[in-house]
């Protein structure tokens, strides 16, 4: 399967937004207000921190604030201090990857950030500010995402297979959903493009036959 037909291609995956569990946006934003808009989002690799931060920017904008999102990672290792120096009381800095900043830079940012309207950062484990939320993943969450992304819209007769696939991927990638989805991208690219074949290592062939045909035709229709 070519890249532009792959249901796990990045532009499709990026349409999936963060799903708050045991909370809603109003409650989260109220807690953020209580924390005076200075808070940390924690979570391991591939748990949705960046996605949540992006979604947070939209919600803050709706509240009349001016979010400034900075992705600090291997692709963007430099902090634009000149731009940060322009931020003021209505601006909320959203910094992804704060724990990757060298400590002197982090303290410089905190000092600079006293003038900001807020500062929300993501970090893997180190709580650099009061914790707003810890992003968590589960096989069920991955299964739900697959149901949204894969062709065939996760019909009932495939639900068990989807759960098996999600469990398998979740376990092997230690809960990193980004890596799990990338592996599935590779499976599709390699021609293992239906849910049943992706599950096959754990399934007897005879159990897969009837569902396999249906899954394949569903996949074709969605391609």
């Amino acid at each position, binding site marked *: *399967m070519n890249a*532009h037909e*792959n249901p796990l291609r*990045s532009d499709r995956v990026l349409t999936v937004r963060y799903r708050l569990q045991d909370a809603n946006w109003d409650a989260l934003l109220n807690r953020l207000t209580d924390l005076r808009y200075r808070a940390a989002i924690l979570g391991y690799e591939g748990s949705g921190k960046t996605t949540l931060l992006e979604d947070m920017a939209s919600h803050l904008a709706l509240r009349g604030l001016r979010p400034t999102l900075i992705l600090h990672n291997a692709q963007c290792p430099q902090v634009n201090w000149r731009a940060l120096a322009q931020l003021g009381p209505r601006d909320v800095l959203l910094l992804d990857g704060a724990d990757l900043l060298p400590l002197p830079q982090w303290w410089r940012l905190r000092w600079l950030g006293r003038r900001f309207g807020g500062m929300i950062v993501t970090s893997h484990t180190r709580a650099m500010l009061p914790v707003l939320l810890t992003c968590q993943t589960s096989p069920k969450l991955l299964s739900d995402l697959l149901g949204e992304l894969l062709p065939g819209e996760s019909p009932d007769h495939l639900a068990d297979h989807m759960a098996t696939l999600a469990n398998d991927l979740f376990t092997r990638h230690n809960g990193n959903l980004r890596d799990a989805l*990338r592996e599935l991208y590779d499976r599709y690219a390699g021609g293992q493009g239906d849910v049943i074949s992706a599950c096959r290592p754990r399934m007897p062939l005879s159990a897969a036959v009837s569902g396999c045909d249906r899954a394949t035709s569903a996949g074709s229709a969605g391609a």
Partner: protein
Amino acid sequence: MDLRIELADHRDVFRPGETVRGTFSWSLSDRPAELEVRLFWYTQGKGTQDMTIVNTRHIDAPRMAGRETFAFELPQGPYTMHGKLISILWALELVAGGATDAARTPLILSLDGRPVVLGEPSSTNTRGPIP
């Protein structure tokens, strides 16, 4: 809201250096602040998506409805390409106002009228030659 791009002679396959011609039309409920037709290529696949706008035609303060022509010379590349990790695709897009509304028309940039398909013999391609 109606935004449309129509390619001249319904031709959507081009060689490098050729000119893409056509018309774009719009019919909107409000008068848009601006309209823009963009010729661009973009990637789809695994990893970060890339996009480059090659040429534009901009209209300031257009009427609520109208019709205009465009003509863009295509560059030498990149060719339309399909691989397992990445595809390169070309398109024209008509964007109204704050870029929330758009119409898109795909096209192919190729030497022989067919997208380059990595890992497959050219005989498996189904598109015909350029007329």
